[in-house]
């Protein structure tokens, strides 16, 4: 029996060879997840639909490069989707900073540790990341999430926290190093 991961890899490989039926199957298997990611980033259905079209056009064009960069198949697809959605988002906000919800350290609560059932379901990377993120000060973990899931820039993170841009950057880089150290344990 093939694992879902092996199936997605196979579909990407066949797509790289110009197999349109495989491409359609790949779309069937992955579009709902990638559309969810686009919606999360853009929070706008119309734009998310456009971003999703960008994503699958890129998948078709770049499927041959998939093996070159050593990502797992879902990571590769999610990264493409997230980046395409953020491109759309930044074009929409072109020039002006997006209005961002404030990040208030006092109001942030650390994410509760995932329950056993959730842990069993999620990938080992997800478990490691969640547990290491929970070791960061909550407002910094939130910055990382905002940057990845909403494409927030340092300028926007500075607005959201009311902290000077250079200071935000210094904090975040320290947190990223802390995260890296925790993840490599």
């Amino acid at each position, binding site marked *: 029996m093939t694992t879902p991961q092996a199936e997605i890899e196979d579909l990407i490989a066949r797509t790289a060879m110009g197999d*349109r039926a495989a491409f*359609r199957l790949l779309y069937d298997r992955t579009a709902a*997840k990638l559309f969810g990611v686009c919606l999360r980033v853009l929070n706008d259905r119309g734009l998310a639909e456009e971003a*999703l079209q960008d994503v*699958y056009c890129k998948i078709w064009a770049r499927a041959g490069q998939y093996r070159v960069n050593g990502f797992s198949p879902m990571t590769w697809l999610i*990264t493409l989707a997230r980046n395409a959605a953020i491109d759309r988002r930044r074009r929409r906000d072109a020039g002006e900073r997006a209005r961002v919800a404030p990040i208030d350290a006092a109001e942030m609560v650390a994410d509760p540790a995932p329950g056993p059932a959730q842990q069993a379901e999620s990938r080992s*990377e997800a478990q490691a990341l969640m547990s290491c993120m929970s070791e960061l000060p909550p407002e910094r973990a939130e910055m990382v999430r905002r940057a990845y899931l909403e494409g927030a820039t340092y300028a926007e993170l500075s607005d959201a926290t009311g902290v000077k841009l250079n200071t935000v950057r210094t904090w975040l*880089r320290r947190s990223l190093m802390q995260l890296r150290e925790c*993840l490599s344990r």
Partner: protein
Amino acid sequence: MSGPEDTDLPGGWEAAAAEYVLGLLPEDELRAFEARLSQDRDLQQDVEAWSEYFAALTDPVEEVAPPPQLLRRIEDRLFGRKRPSLWQQILPYLLGAVAAAAIAWAAMFSGMLDFRNEPDLWADLETPSRGLVLLAHYAPESQTFMMQREAGDYPAGRSLEIWMIPEEGDTPISLGLVAEDGLTQIPVPQELAAAMDGAAIAISEEEPGGSPTGVAQGPILSIAQMAPRDE
């Protein structure tokens, strides 16, 4: 050119790898980073590892089914100008039909400039080898596409599917199945209705219930161009 190492920022290239994946690197540093990334295998592994970890941030993101027509739009964008071989085979016939439609159009433009009433559109779909004759009729007033079997038998245990090709090179769009008996009536959505004049209509034979993939699988029995008729 300034790289992260030229600044007082903590973390050096390793932190920059995470910033890169998060999309946080300022423009000038981005270029320096990518130049180094192409040379530095360790840095590439850092970027891969961060990509893998941060992608896990989307684990709680719920799946949402995209609207059904989105795949077709993607395929239009990707393959719109290149038809599968099945359609390439019938292209010569299609080109003849296009010429006929162009003449019809020219006649219309020179003859009458009143477009307030859009004309009804018609096409004869004949399959001489089977003695099958279908008449396609589009009524703009009710935005209804109709099809009547004038001669020949409905293939036993199979379905006849109706495809619309708005413009040459477009991906065929399924309009539905020809009813086994009586008049087939299919309401046409606005965006297709606008493209009906001059569109090609094709009939393919499919498994019962029609093509499961949204793409014609079976043989193309006939194709013709929708055009107004002298009444």
